């Protein structure tokens, strides 16, 4: 039994054959074209589909020779053969030299030469004493007329003529003017085509039953065309159902980068939590990168942030005052910050040394002098580390950092923010806080979360900026500082396990990359 979906999937060409011919009949291209009005090619398509379905079986196969018009043959048919054109020209214009004829007819000399040759062989033309072609007989030779007849016959039959349809004389003539290969200078090309005879098999009845039950006739409408709509010819017709299970073709759309989109989602989330974005220079000074953050110029804490130095210029021209003096004082003896300082001679030359910023906290420090109270600021910024590049280290990468200023912020509000980030940004269900260490915060807290997929891991570091940092930069209220590591979440969201992949240059892998994260 043929089910409905199989019947629906039949092409109108198949349907037409199924409803027209009965089991046991023998059909071929000629018969199908004649009976059903199929165009060239449609018959072959329908036969191959139906053979695959077992509705047709090949019964007999004969190779048949066809003579196809070449572009030159079509030109001869349209404009006349060179022989006829020379004959007509001489008849109208009288004696002419061969170059003259070539020029007037727009033909090349070789073509004119060979046409003239055949005309003189037939005694229709001759050369006079001044080497001009003249007409000797008033009519074209029979061979020329025979060629024209062949051209016309082929043209009438869609561009080719079967060898079977030719008389012996025509065959002999065709042998002279048709070529199998390199036929561009011949009017006909010899082509062999198989003529296949198919037998209609008994299964055609099952198909016919199914097709008839669905009311299919093979006259269903195919693609909807503008003409169809203009004329309204679709009205009253049936639309051919398509095979809806077919694999669609691939398209390559313009697309955002999945990693950048992920970073944007984090930015949007932070904006929604009331944070204002900051940004800054890739090249910074030791001053802003470390000194302003109260990291002593001599201390091993500086080792954490091994930095890249700029070759030229080596130093900034100046550091903004009064921050330089205030920071230097905080380092040396605490200045007015209430600290005893690091008790050493602050190097005002070294502090101008130009580097590639090694931590996003630089921008937090730079924000302090211009920040509002209350104020919340963040940045997702590129940082540079003196690290060997591998699956877990990059020489440049994004850090997400920020600050919160307020009269009443404290350790508990810091924990409140960390909880908010854990839940809102990272989708954590469980959060824990452990004491941490950062040179610029006191107290310092690390936040660990239990991620639904990654398990417990450190989401970020945070703390309350030391007074040596804030007061030196003109801020008198407590400032919460935080940084969250989103790279692991990014890798997971993108289904990757190598940080280098985030910045992949490979187009195909970037094109295929999908975000699997949920926008909270």
């Amino acid at each position, binding site marked *: 039994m043929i089910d409905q979906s199989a019947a629906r999937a039949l092409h109108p060409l198949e349907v037409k054959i199924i409803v027209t011919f009965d089991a046991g009949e023998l059909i071929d291209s000629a018969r199908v074209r004649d009976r059903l009005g199929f165009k060239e090619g449609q018959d072959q398509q329908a036969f191959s589909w139906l053979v695959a379905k077992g509705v047709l079986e090949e019964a007999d196969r004969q190779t048949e020779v066809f003579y196809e018009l070449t572009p030159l043959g079509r030109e001869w048919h349209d404009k006349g053969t060179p022989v006829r054109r020379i004959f007509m020209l001489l008849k109208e214009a009288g004696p002419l030299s061969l170059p003259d004829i070539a020029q007037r007819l727009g033909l090349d000399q070789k073509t004119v030469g060979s046409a003239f040759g055949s005309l003189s062989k037939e005694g229709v033309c001759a050369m006079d004493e001044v080497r001009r072609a003249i007409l000797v007989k008033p009519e074209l030779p029979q061979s020329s007329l025979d060629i024209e007849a062949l051209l016309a016959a082929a043209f009438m039959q869609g561009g080719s003529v079967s060898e079977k349809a030719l008389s012996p004389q025509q065959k002999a003539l065709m042998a002279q003017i048709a070529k199998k290969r390199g036929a561009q200078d011949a009017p006909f090309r010899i082509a062999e085509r198989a003529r296949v005879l198919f037998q209609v098999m008994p299964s055609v009845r099952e198909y016919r039953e199914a097709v008839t039950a669905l009311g299919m006739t093979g006259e269903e409408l195919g693609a909807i065309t503008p003409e169809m709509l203009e004329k309204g010819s679709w009205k009253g017709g049936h639309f051919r159902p398509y095979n809806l299970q077919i694999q669609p073709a691939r398209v390559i759309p313009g697309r955002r980068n999945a990693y950048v989109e992920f970073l944007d989602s984090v930015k949007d989330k932070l904006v929604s939590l009331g944070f204002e974005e900051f940004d800054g220079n890739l*090249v910074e000074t030791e001053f802003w990168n470390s000194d302003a953050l109260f990291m002593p110029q001599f201390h091993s*804490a500086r080792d954490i942030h091994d930095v890249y130095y*700029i*070759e030229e210029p080596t130093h*900034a021209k100046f550091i903004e005052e009064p921050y330089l003096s205030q920071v230097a004082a905080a380092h040396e003896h605490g200045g007015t910050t209430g600290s005893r300082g690091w008790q050493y001679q602050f190097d005002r030359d070294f502090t101008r040394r130009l580097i590639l910023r090694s931590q996003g906290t630089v921008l937090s420090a730079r924000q302090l002098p211009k920040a509002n109270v209350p104020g919340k600021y963040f940045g997702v910024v590129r940082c540079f580390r*003196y690290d060997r590049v591998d699956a877990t280290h990059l020489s440049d990468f994004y850090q997400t950092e920020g600050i919160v200023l307020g009269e009443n912020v404290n350790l508990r509000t810091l924990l409140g923010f960390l909880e908010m980030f854990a839940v809102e940004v990272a989708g954590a269900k469980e959060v824990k806080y452990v*004491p941490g260490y950062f*040179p610029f915060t006191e107290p310092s807290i690390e936040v660990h979360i239990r991620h639904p997929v990654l398990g417990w891991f450190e989401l970020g570091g945070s703390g309350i900026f030391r007074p040596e940092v804030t007061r030196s930069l003109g801020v008198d209220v407590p400032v919460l500082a935080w940084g969250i590591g989103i790279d692991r979440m990014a890798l997971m969201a993108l289904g990757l396990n190598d940080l280098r992949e985030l910045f992949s240059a490979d187009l195909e892998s970037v094109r295929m990359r999908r975000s699997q994260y949920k926008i909270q």
Partner: protein
Amino acid sequence: MPKIEVNERLFFALAEKTWTDKESFEQDLTVAKAELDEWDMTGPADGERTIKIELNDTNRPDLWSTAGLARQLRIYRTGKIPSYPFFASRKKNVTAPYRVVVDKSVREVRPWLAGFVAKGKAISDALLRDMIQTQEKLAWNFGRKRKSVSIGIYRIGLIEWPVHYRGVDPDAVSFVPLQETRTMTLRQILEQHPKGIEYGSILMGKPIHPLLTDAGGKVLSYPPIINSADLGAVQMGDTDIFIEVTGTDYPSVALSCAIMACDLADMGFDIENVEVDYEYDTPFGASVTCPYYFQEEVSVSLADASRLLGISLEISDTLAALNRMGLCAYSTDGTLIHVAPPEYRNDFLHAFDIVEDIMIGMGMENFMPQRPTDFTIGRLTPIEGFSRRAKNIMVGLGYQEMVYNYLGSGKDYAEKMQIPANSLVKIANPMTENYEYVRNSSLPGLMQTEGVSAKASYPHRTFEVGKVALKAPEANYGVVTHQYIGFLTSHAQADYNEIASHVAALMYFLGKEYSVREAIDPRFVPGRQVEVLVNGARVGVFGEVHPAVLEAFGVVMPCAAGELDLDMLLED
């Protein structure tokens, strides 16, 4: 951050607790800001198992040793603060059985020395390894790779007292250093001995080098480079040792000495003092008996601590919390808390440093997160908003967004792009030549993509929005950072007209009127490239990528590309 290996049995004995599972051990480590790195529990607990631990607090070198870390955990649990009665201080004189004389010749090169003698316990293999580890961590991490602090350990039996610390001519003195059998001058040691090569830079260019000898003139060591093979080779089974610390920063030297002394005292050694007599003054007088308690009392008000922690602190709870951290704290008026730092700590720079110890002492579980209440308006930077508009337009034009690293090689950024390398910001200390320059364009990234993506179906249309570093001699930093958008189209028919149409669409939807002027940029084909001008200012360039560039990147498909300065467009 320092990482140490502790002998499991030694550590548990000193901490007075045996841990059997990682989770509770990790939890207990948090009071010392320490993290369990590796603990292979598969072998038998026969005293040979080691635990690797990472210490996060670079200001607490006292925690970087088996005894020091165990001490913090022990005190936190028991509340019992150990006493180290052998310390001398401003208020307390102690008679020292040993003496070191510091000659004024050493003042300019490495002026400070502290030391003590430890006796009465045979040094086991585990103990020796631990002592060497502590010595190395202090000298490397805290002492800045021996620059400000280095430590020597000696067998006391062979030393003739007093010991002399002086400056000498590096070519005039010679001795047999550790790991050697021949006599070498100090200069030869610097040039040929592995330690000399490693640490020689500390003494580079100094006419006088430090040397430690005994009363008989035998060399103890050549600080901070190497000990003598004779007096400076401590072995298993030794019971009496002399430990000295030299350096350039007095508090660091005194603290390192204190840490070593407390550690050895915790391990059961008797500590005996060494008097160090200088020919010049130290912050604590010309004669200092070591170990010396040099720290000063610090104080914080209960109100400040309460405000910072966000809870209302009670004085008794606060003192108890500080006690758990090992701090002797007291208050006379109930509002101001005074803390005498322990002998082995010197990390109280500001009153707020006490607050963190209160926090850890009380336990994190006593601080409930509080939702912030201050209202603020969130917003993106103007350039971010503008860039997003540009990105959306490019996506609509069928372009795939890319993101690239900002560091790369001179080959990719300059040579292949046919531009001079001196137009780029160069790193003075690159780790490898693969990351030696900061980019000044996103086109090298887009070209790299073409170089590796010939198999990806065409057309390729890519773009990137990101930062570039541009040289700007007049700017304070000599370099400015701008946000660029770079874009590239690559396929058999990619040409000037296509990229020009895309630029036109982009600029129209960004609302920017522009004109073009023929450009001469080696990255593009002459006569098929233009500068983009907005109000007379050059904001970008686009054109057909020069075949020489394509060839350099191994690309055999025509490319047209360009880039625009979004910061300039935004300002306009």
